């Protein structure tokens, strides 16, 4: 439990550091929000009044605390370009990006674990060689290009889905998941290829160790040794990789959303960056950072479960 507490504390400290950095950075570049809000109607007196009202005359740390406090209660500020609360723009997009990421993650695990074990077991065989070459090529795919090829292949030639025919999750949840299947596949494939390679080398490396020889000499069958002894240890580096892949996928979905025209967080993040709509950019970056930190936290916990030595340390 002490381990969990320590990890939780680190997470909050990192979150604090990240949000403070983001706040300060955007505070410096975004200039004076009061004058950009008043525009041509700005007079020195009105500017001063608005600044006082918005709390812009307070020390920066006080402003940060106020912003963070509001953020926690769900008030993410007002968009410059749409003049509407940022929370209204962002909250209904989070489930879209999250579903896409989770779907992609499960695909990656479902593809990579069996393939990784298979190739390790049959290392040096013909199928292992073929999968190796295939893997190297898939790994070189930028996710948006795999997305384009998937659109071409499954959308155009096999007509398994309608490109651009996004279905909102509020209207039809399963239709929504169905539409996300191929985008998720586009994100999952390159990562799955890396995971297969890692798991294969991890299992092979582990199988050379003495305890494996001992297990064999005591009369265990190959599968018993593999699943009861080797895999437990071989999975540790893979879990680290899967965690990193998951955080990468959150960011990768920003790109894939553009390929399949999915209205998720990525879409508004990009328009807001080009519109210099800083409150929106800030809110989305903080949301994604929070997701990334939670994922890292969960990975650390799983780590402690698989390898109890880590949590003692």
């Amino acid at each position, binding site marked *: 439990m002490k381990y969990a507490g320590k990890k939780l504390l680190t997470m909050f400290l*990192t979150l604090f*550091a*990240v949000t403070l950095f*983001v706040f300060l*950075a*955007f505070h410096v*570049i975004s200039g004076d929000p009061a004058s950009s809000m008043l525009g041509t109607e700005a007079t020195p007196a009105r500017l001063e009044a608005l600044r006082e009202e918005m709390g812009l005359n307070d020390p920066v740390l006080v402003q940060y605390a106020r912003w963070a406090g509001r953020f926690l209660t769900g008030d993410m500020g007002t968009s410059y370009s749409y003049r509407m609360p940022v929370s209204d723009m962002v909250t209904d997009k989070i489930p879209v990006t999250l579903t896409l990421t989770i779907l992609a993650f499960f695909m990656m695990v479902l593809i990579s674990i069996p393939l990784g074990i298979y190739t390790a077991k049959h290392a040096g065989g013909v199928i292992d060689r073929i999968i190796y070459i295939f893997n*190297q*090529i898939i*790994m*070189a*795919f*930028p*996710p*948006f*290009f795999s997305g*384009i*090829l998937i*659109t*071409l292949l499954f959308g*155009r030639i096999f007509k398994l889905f309608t*490109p651009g025919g996004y279905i909102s999750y509020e209207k039809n949840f399963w239709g929504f998941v169905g539409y996300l299947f191929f985008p998720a596949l586009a994100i999952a494939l390159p990562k799955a290829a890396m995971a297969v390679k890692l798991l294969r080398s991890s299992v092979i490396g582990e199988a050379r160790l003495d305890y494996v020889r001992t297990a064999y000499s005591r009369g265990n069958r190959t599968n018993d040794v593999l699943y009861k002894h080797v895999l437990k240890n071989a999975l540790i580096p893979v879990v680290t990789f899967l965690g990193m892949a998951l*955080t*990468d996928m*959150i*960011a*990768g979905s*920003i*790109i894939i959303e*553009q*390929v399949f025209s999915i209205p998720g967080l990525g879409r508004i*993040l*990009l328009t807001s*960056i*080009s519109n*210099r709509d*800083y409150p929106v*950019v800030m809110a989305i*970056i903080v949301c*994604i*950072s929070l997701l*990334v*930190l939670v994922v*890292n936290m969960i990975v650390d916990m799983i780590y402690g479960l698989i390898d109890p030595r880590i949590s003692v340390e």
Partner: protein
Amino acid sequence: MKSGKKKNYNFIVGGTITGLMLIFIIIGFFYTPYDPNAMDPSAKFAGISLKHLMGCDNFGRDILSRVMKGAGTTLSVAAGTVFIGTFFGIILGAVTGYFGGILDEILMRVNDAIFAFPSILLALVFISLLGSGTYQVVIALGIAFIPSFARIVRSEFIKCKNMDYVKNARLQGAGHLRIMFVHILPNTFTVLLSAIMIGFNNAVLAEAGMSFLGIGVQPPQASLGRMLSEAQTYLFRAPNYAIFPGLVIILMVLGFSLLGDALKREE
């Protein structure tokens, strides 16, 4: 070291692909079959032919010429990124690994925090601070790449700093800077080289992603990612417009990743 009879196929294949790509790009710097930005209305969506080996795009620009220029842009951005990442990564990693102590503790915590974030996201933060454009992308991606290099260099320095040759140098009166950069650094080159190859691989992918999103290289300058995002609109009409730039990205990344693998195995 030497694996005897068995050749290192990764090295041969990776080296060949990278070499061919480099030749392709270098030719592109000096000569392209057509002006990459010249529009020929009569050649709109021209198919693959002897005149246009990869066909033409929606403005009638020759795709082969644009791919040649675009690959050059992508590689230059990747080189700049890797340079920034390696340069500052080496300094940070060397100082923290060699001296250790409280500075190491603080810098590495910050490093770990940055490392935990996907590099595309970091780059997006910097882009929204700096504005979009080629140099901004190089700086943004470069900063995002520093932590991974710093980590690798630091662990190598920790491994080396108590070795006999370092003690020997110290006894002969070499200063810290000299020990760090003249004695220890050359010994990290094999590890560093493999990291640089992997860095190139990631940088090419990241640059392509950024220009695909429209925040990297600005038009009319050709860039592979940008071409792909434009090609997407005409995907069903002219699939060749998307496939060739994509293929070139894949070949570049494949070459670098095979070389990186090969160097790792040598070690």
